[in-house]
């Protein structure tokens, strides 16, 4: 177990390192000179050189990359003498646009994205699994066919269409919900809930539909398993038969997919956050890409990669706990 964990963590670090390297390389090679961007229209060559020195982008690629990496773990200094700015670890640099600490920006926005992800995940798990389970038990009936067609439709609607349609119907036409605003849960819990409801639904719809189909297929397979027949031949109570001998085996594989989906969502929901004006990681990514704000893009990319890679390891560990046949040597 310890050896397995050590191996997985080594792999995790290696992948994150490679993500860093390639992301950095892309910006180093492909994007316009940040010094010119920061300097603006009234710019002198001296000023450009000065900015380059302060940012450290006058150095060769590997040196810059090393500065970035060591900044992540040990912090780094920008400039020198009276202009010296210390960026404490974990240092992701400063936004070219707002001059804010990128780490601070991430910390500010992560709660929004996490709220979105947790709410949406709860919703899609409840809706998807319930729908799939009912369809499996009523396989071939009118209910099953309509639910599965609905699921196919739901999974095919793009998020931006659903988001705009929901806003039009619920906010503009029916006026059931207020337009989403960024309020803290502690300030106005009801408004907070109302604000997040539409983004949750938008994010959950596609996944819920996929999970419904997946659950249905898994449960139907499990009901045909020999061990389910054994359970029935034992004369157990129906609830126990379903819970132990149908649901547990059918839902365990879904944990894997759920872990990955949830991790990806923590990396930011670009479209949904933008459409609803939620200040999360996704909106931050969209804004930074639009304005070529390199340190922020870098941070957002790394963060998404971090969640996906860590999510993967967590899923593997959880799976070994859930399925006794999977043994770690």
């Amino acid at each position, binding site marked *: 177990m310890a050896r397995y964990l050590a191996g997985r963590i080594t792999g995790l670090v290696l992948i994150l390192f490679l993500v860093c390297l390639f992301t950095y390389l892309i910006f180093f090679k492909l994007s316009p000179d940040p010094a010119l961007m920061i300097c603006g229209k009234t710019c002198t060559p001296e000023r450009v050189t000065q900015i380059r020195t302060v940012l450290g982008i006058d150095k060769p690629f590997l040196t810059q990359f090393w500065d970035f990496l060591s900044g992540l773990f040990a912090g780094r200094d920008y400039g020198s003498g009276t202009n010296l700015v210390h960026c404490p670890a974990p240092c992701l640099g400063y936004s070219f646009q707002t001059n804010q600490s990128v780490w601070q920006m991430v910390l500010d926005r992560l709660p929004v994205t996490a709220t979105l992800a947790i709410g949406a995940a709860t919703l899609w798990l409840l809706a998807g699994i319930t729908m799939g389970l009912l369809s499996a038990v009523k396989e071939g009936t009118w209910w099953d066919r309509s639910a599965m067609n609905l699921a196919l439709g739901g999974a095919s609607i793009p998020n931006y269409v659903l988001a705009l349609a929901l806003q039009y119907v619920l906010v503009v036409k029916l006026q059931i919900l207020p337009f989403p605003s960024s309020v803290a849960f502690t300030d106005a819990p009801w408004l907070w809930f109302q604000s997040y409801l539409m983004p949750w639904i938008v994010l959950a719809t596609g996944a819920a539909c996929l999970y419904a189909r997946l659950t249905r297929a898994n449960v139907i397979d499990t009901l045909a*398993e*020999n*061990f389910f*027949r*054994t*359970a*029935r*031949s*034992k*004369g*157990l*109570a*129906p609830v*126990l038969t379903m819970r*132990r*001998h149908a649901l*547990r*085996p059918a839902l*365990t594989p879904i944990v894997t997919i759920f872990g990955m989906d949830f991790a990806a969502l923590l990396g930011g929901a670009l479209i949904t956050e933008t459409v609803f004006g939620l200040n999360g990681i996704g909106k931050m990514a969209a804004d930074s890409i639009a304005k070529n704000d390199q340190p922020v893009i870098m941070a957002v990319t790394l963060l998404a990669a971090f969640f996906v890679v860590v999510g993967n390891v967590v899923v593997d560990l959880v799976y070994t706990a*859930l*399925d*006794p*046949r999977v043994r770690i040597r």
Partner: protein
Amino acid sequence: MRGQGPMSEDPMSAAASGPDVTSELLVVENLTVTLPTTRGPVAVVKDVSFTVGRNETVGIVGESGSGKSMTSLAIMGLLPRGALTTGSVRLDGVELLGLGDREMRRIRGAQASMIFQDPLSSLNPYYTVGLQIEEMYRAHLGGSRKEARKVAVEALERVGIPEPERRTGHYPHQFSGGQRQRIMIAMALVCSPGLLIADEPTTALDVTVQAQILRLLADLQRQTRTGMVFITHDLAVISSIATRVLVMCRGEQVEYGTAEQVFSAPEHAYTRRLLESIPRITDDLSADEVVL
């Protein structure tokens, strides 16, 4: 319909000495099972009748698709959805066909239980064998977890699993094929049912293990006086353990009688062909003995 009247009119005259064939445990009369298919209803079991006495073993023989398993599932009330059953199945004098779900559940496991062909896929891989035995015991006889655990340990011990206490905490994949079938048997007998239906219990096992499992079943039957329906396509196996034999072909009962009658003087051409398909049954039997 095949020159075989219902067995109740014809008590076995050549009854073997050991098993109590006169005291009827299970009486199946004119059992017909019809399954719905896309091409309309198909009768998979047609007018089958047989009787199992207490402590007796009745063999059902036939090739795949002959309706052997459907017959056993019909007795247990475990047929697929939409299946239609007619005739009569009486266990200890109680008519099982037409019983409600709740009543049938009380009978399954407590009065009639079943073991299957593939013990690996027949056990739930997510739970320890201990729990799978305990849940069955508690479903019918109640009791605390602790009591049930004690019963599970005893059940494993009875079927010859070494270190039963430790092994109750293990999962099915941690046992060998033969051990898994022993566990299935332990589980099936944990509530001391009157009837055990064994649906090809040795088919998936290799020959040595097969012989051990047959010996175990015979031993347990002697101790517990359980009536047994033993389904197989292996005539050698049947001849070594069954007192009466039912031969099925395409859902129909083509031959029914004492093992002696069926094997020495088969009435039906199909039975004769079956018997010819395995040369020298007696040699196979003595081979079993050598292995043990």
